[in-house]
């Protein structure tokens, strides 16, 4: 017995690994074989198992649509109408332009699929993953594909759902190219942020039945605007009205000086006989002081200063206007970069 152990270990190690769980693709392949063998229940079961797999091994879109085609056909022959509709609607919502293979499936299945496709109003959007363009003068392009002829409203919306700019409102047949110049409804370049390309599909009753939302992350280039000239400093403005200072200076200098000249000599040189000319000079000084006071008393408008200030402010307004206009031109030349995210489809139609 003791000599058997190495042999047993060797046999175990050399044996092929036990088959793990089959991949979704293999499940679909086995389902197709079962469908061809008319083992419809097995086919349905395998496909549902394959579609239920999540994670890295999940089916590609093409594989998924093919699997759904087989699922729909198998349910058709199993007479499960609701399951057929569900499978085919899922195909249409995933890819409105998908056609089931009429070489594989019989006409009654393909015609039913066509009916489902006609009645399932939905659009799919193809947008560049990253695009750069100049707002206003260039444009961003998206391609819309419709399941069938119906009315849509395509727009760019803000993150809160409010419409920023309607891009198209009307009927769509097979496909439609829509454009956005990066401006909002006020013809202003949008700022950086998250926006959404939305496409509302309207049903036969006029109600919105589906809403496609494609997130758009918009970044705007830095704008080198010219600085607005600051208002001239207060120190540059001349006083527009006279102040009291000069008037008081004139009053003090004239009147006090005049009185001093007239009266002080007697006190200064009492033993002298000051001449009367002191009254002439002192009187003239006093009168001149009063005249200077009244001519310069505060509140009088200074016309030349007012004109100089108006010229100063007018020149500033001109420069400010020029700079503001230049900035408007520069802001209209915003370069936008749009990164599109994965679309989501909101089904607004009741079950």
């Amino acid at each position: 017995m003791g000599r058997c152990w190495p042999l047993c270990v060797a046999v175990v190690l050399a044996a092929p690994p036990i088959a793990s769980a089959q991949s979704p693709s293999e499940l679909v392949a086995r389902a197709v074989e079962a469908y061809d063998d008319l083992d419809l229940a097995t086919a349905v079961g395998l496909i549902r198992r394959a579609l239920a797999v999540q994670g890295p091994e999940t089916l590609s879109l093409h594989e998924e649509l093919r699997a759904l085609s087989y699922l729909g056909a198998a349910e058709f022959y199993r007479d499960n109408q609701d399951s057929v509709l569900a499978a085919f609607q899922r195909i249409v919502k995933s890819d409105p332009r998908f056609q089931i293979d009429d070489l594989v499936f019989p006409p009654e299945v393909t015609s039913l699929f066509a009916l489902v496709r006609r009645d399932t109003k939905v659009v799919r959007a193809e947008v560049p993953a990253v695009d750069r363009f100049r707002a206003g003068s260039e444009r961003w392009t998206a391609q819309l594909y419709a399941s069938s002829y119906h009315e849509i409203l395509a727009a760019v919306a803000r993150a809160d759902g409010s419409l920023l700019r309607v891009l198209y409102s009307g009927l769509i047949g097979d496909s439609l190219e829509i454009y956005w110049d990066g401006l909002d409804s006020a013809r202003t370049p949008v700022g950086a942020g998250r926006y959404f390309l939305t496409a509302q599909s309207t049903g036969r009753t006029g109600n919105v039945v589906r809403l496609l939302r494609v997130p758009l992350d918009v970044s705007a280039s830095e704008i080198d605007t010219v600085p607005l000239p600051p208002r001239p400093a207060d120190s540059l403005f001349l006083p527009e009205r006279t102040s009291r200072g000069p008037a008081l200076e004139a009053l003090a200098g004239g009147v006090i000086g005049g009185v001093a000249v007239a009266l002080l000599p007697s006190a200064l040189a009492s033993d002298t006989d000051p001449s009367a000319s002191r009254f002439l000079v002192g009187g003239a000084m006093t009168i001149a002081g009063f005249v200077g006071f009244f001519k310069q008393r505060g509140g009088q408008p200074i016309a030349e200063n007012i004109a100089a200030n108006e010229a100063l402010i007018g020149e500033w307004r001109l420069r400010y206007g020029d700079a503001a206009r230049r900035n408007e031109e520069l802001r209209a030349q915003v370069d936008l970069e749009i990164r599109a995210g994965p679309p989501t489809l909101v089904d607004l139609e009741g079950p």
Partner: protein
Amino acid sequence: VILRRAAAILGLLVLTAGNVLAAQERNRWMAAGIVGLANVTQSTTLDTTKLSGPVVGLEAGIRFRWAELRGRYSQGNLDQDEGGEGADLVEGELMLGVWPVKPLALRFGPRARSFVTPAGTIRWVFWEARARFEASLSRSASVWSYFEGWYVVSGSVNAAASFDNGRGIEGGLGFQIPSTPLQVRAAYRIDRGALQDDVRTEGVDALMLSIGVGR
């Protein structure tokens, strides 16, 4: 004594100048001719003599920011009011000044006065400290008034008695003709000097008109 007082006054002026506003008014200058009418009252313990007559002279000054230098010279032949002998009056001064604030100037310097008579010459020398207030009477500063008072900090006279005290004032109106450098000024001045115990006092007042140029 004179030198000590002069040094003290000069020191005061320099200290004041150190605190003046950094940028005072623009630099200025003036030069003018003077005509005037002078009245002199000379009193001694014995009598009083009055003389009067015209004087003429020159004055000039320059101001650089807050510092200035001014000089004046005048002379005239005076007649005795009561018909006695006349005298020649010769007067000169040189003042150094500063403007610590815009309307106020402080000055210091010597002033000399001589009375020349056939009997001899009496010469006074005053070292004066002055304060001058100058006010603009019009917005364009083309009319101004000024008042100046001074005190003699030290003096001498060529007489038997020594100098005792002296003081004076001057006030007037100036007018600069617009757009020209022409200046006209009318002023009244009076000063008094006295010897010890008032053995002799001398008062001079004058009405002066000066016409010149300046900025």
